[in-house]
C-alpha cells in the first residue's frame, strides 16, 4: 500500500524534527559527523543544494522554517518561547533558564529563576494533555508561578480547565510567529519543603541549611539528608523560597548569552548548555558548504 501524500509529508517533517537533537550536535562538534543532516538532504532536498541552500547553516534555517510552518513540534515551541518571550518579554538579566527540570514524577519543559520562580509546560497541537493536571500539581509544589504554553486554538479550553495557571499562546501574523501572555499565573502562597529537598542537589540543600542557620550541624553522609530535611521544614516559607531561588541561580547556565546565538538554535544550545567558545566552533562547522556527491 502506497503512503498517501499527506503521510509522506508528515514523515518528512518528523524526520526533519530529529535534526534538532543535542546528541547529534555533540557528534558534529566532537567528530565532525554531519551524517544526521546529510541523510535528510539526500532523502528530501538534494535538488535544493547549490540553488537556495549552500551551507549547513542555510539548510538548518530552511528546515526550521518548514517545521515552523507545517509541523510545530515541541522544539519549535520551546525555541519560539525563548526568542519571543524569554529574551524579549522577561529579559535574561539576572535570570537562569533551565531546560527539562524534574519535580516529583514530572519534568517541566522549562523553568526560570529570577526574582521569582516560574515553571512552563508546553502543549503543542501535536501533544495530548493526558498528564497535564498531575504535572501542574507537581510544579506548583515548589514553583511560585506555573504557565502553560499552547496554541491559540487551544487557549479557551485550557483557560476553563484550570484557573490558577497562566497561559501563553502561540499566534501567527502572516509570516511572523509570536507568543503572548493571555493570563498571568496566580502566585502560589507556599512551597513544599519535602518536595524541594527531593528536587535539588545535595550541595544545594546543604547550602540552604547553612545560609539560614549560619552553619551545618554535625552529620555524616548517611544521615545528612534526614538531618537537613528536618531543618529545612522549620525555615519560614518565604525565606525558604528566597534561599531556593538564590541557590538555583548559582547553577551554571548560558542563559545570559543566548541572545548572541543563532535564533533557530537557541533551544538546542540552552539544553546543551554550550559556552561561547564551543558555540563559535559549532558555527564554523555549520558554515561549511554542503558537498553531496
Amino acid at each position: 500500500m502506497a503512503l498517501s501524500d499527506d503521510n509522506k509529508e508528515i514523515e518528512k517533517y518528523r524526520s526533519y524534527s530529529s535534526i534538532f537533537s543535542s546528541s547529534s550536535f555533540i557528534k558534529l562538534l566532537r567528530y565532525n559527523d554531519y551524517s544526521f543532516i546529510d541523510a535528510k538532504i539526500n532523502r528530501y532536498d538534494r535538488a535544493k543544494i547549490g540553488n537556495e541552500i549552500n551551507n549547513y547553516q542555510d539548510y538548518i534555517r530552511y528546515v526550521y522554517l518548514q517545521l515552523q510552518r507545517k509541523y510545530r513540534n515541541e522544539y519549535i515551541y520551546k525555541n519560539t518561547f525563548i526568542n519571543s518571550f524569554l529574551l524579549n518579554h522577561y529579559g535574561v538579566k539576572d535570570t537562569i533558564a533551565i531546560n527539562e527540570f524534574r519535580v516529583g514524577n514530572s519534568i517541566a519543559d522549562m523553568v526560570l529563576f529570577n526574582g521569582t520562580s516560574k515553571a512552563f509546560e508546553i502543549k503543542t497541537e501535536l501533544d495530548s494533555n493526558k498528564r497535564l493536571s498531575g504535572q501542574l500539581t507537581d510544579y506548583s509544589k515548589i514553583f511560585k508561578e506555573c504557565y502553560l504554553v499552547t496554541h491559540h486554538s487551544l487557549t479557551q479550553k485550557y483557560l476553563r480547565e484550570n484557573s490558577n495557571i497562566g497561559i501563553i499562546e502561540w499566534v501567527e501574523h502572516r509570516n511572523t510567529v509570536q507568543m503572548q501572555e493571555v493570563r498571568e499565573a496566580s502566585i502560589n502562597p507556599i512551597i513544599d519543603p519535602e518536595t524541594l529537598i527531593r528536587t535539588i542537589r545535595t550541595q544545594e540543600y546543604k547550602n540552604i541549611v547553612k545560609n539560614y542557620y549560619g552553619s551545618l550541624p554535625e552529620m555524616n553522609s548517611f544521615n545528612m539528608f534526614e538531618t537537613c530535611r528536618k531543618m529545612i521544614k522549620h525555615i519560614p516559607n518565604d525565606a525558604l523560597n528566597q534561599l531556593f531561588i538564590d541557590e538555583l541561580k548559582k547553577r551554571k547556565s548560558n542563559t545570559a548569552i543566548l541572545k548572541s546565538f543563532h535564533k533557530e538554535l537557541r533551544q538546542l544550545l540552552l539544553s546543551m548548555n554550550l559556552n561561547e567558545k564551543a558555540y563559535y566552533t559549532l558555527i564554523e562547522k555549520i558554515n561549511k558548504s554542503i558537498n553531496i556527491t
Partner: protein
Amino acid sequence: MIALREYAQQKGDKNNIIPIIEPVRATFNSMKLALPKLIDGNVKFALILNPQVGDIQNTSEITEVLRNVLSNRSNWIPAFIVTKKYKDVNRTIIENGYQDVMLILTDMVDIEDPNFNALIGLSNVRFIVTKENKSLKRKIRDKDFVRLDDNFKAQKRNSDYLAIDEEKFSEEHLYYIEDGYAGFSDYTTLVSDFIEGGVSPWAIAIHLTYPKENKEIWIKHFVSDTNDDQSNIQGKFAEAAKKAVDFLDSKRIHTHATTELRSYVNEQKYPGLGMVKKISIKHHLELLNDLLPLA
C-alpha cells in the same frame, strides 16, 4: 580501571587473572595510571587494539600514546575484537609483528570464511576468546581457547534486583580444563555492553559474587529500599551497603574490596557510585583469584 589497579597492588603473590582491557576514552588518563601498576604487580593484561566502543577515533593512537608503558611486549598481550574485518586485523598483526596475539570472536564471525581462516591460522595468534563454539574448537587444535560467558544478567532497573535476590553466576572455574579450555572469562559484574554516562538512580544495587558450598559462584544483589524517587542517594547507599555487610559477616567473607565496603558503613560515608562499582568488580577478581588453585 581503578579496580584493576588496586587488585594488582593488593592481590598478594598469586595471580590467576589476565584482564582484557578495551580502551574507550581518547584521553587515556586511566590507562596511563593503571597499566604501569599492573606491570609492577606482575599482572599480565590483554589490551584491545581495535576498540569497538567509546570515543577513540584513530586506533593507532593507543599504541602511540601508551608507547612507553607498552614497550616491553612480554608484559601484555595484543588483543583484537574480530568482527567481519578479518583482513584489517590480519594486516595490523603482521605489520606490527605482534606475537602471542589474542582474538576475541564476536557473533559476526563466520568460521567458514577463508579470510577468517587465514587470520586464525597465523602462527602469531595464540589465544582465542569465544563463546562456547564446538565446531571451531574441533577444527582448530593448536590454539589456547578461552571460554567467554556473559554471566551478568542485567535488569532494566536496579530495583528489579530486589525480586531476584541472588542467582547463579558461573561454574566455569570447575570445568574449563575438563572441557578443553586454557581459561575462562567473564565481564565481571558488569554488563557486556558499554554504556556511556548515567543519571542519578532511583535505586542503588550492590552486586557481590560468592562461592556456594558446592563451589558454584553465585551473585547476590543488595538493593536499597526507598526507591520511590531520585533523592538522598547517600541514604540509598546506606540501606544497600548495610544489607551487604550483614551478609558478608554471616558468610565470613573477607576480601580487600569487602573490607573497604565495611569501612564505608562503619564510618557512615558515601563513596560515590563509581566506588560502588569498583568494589563489586575488585571483589569478583579477588574471589576468582583465590578460588583458582594455580599460582
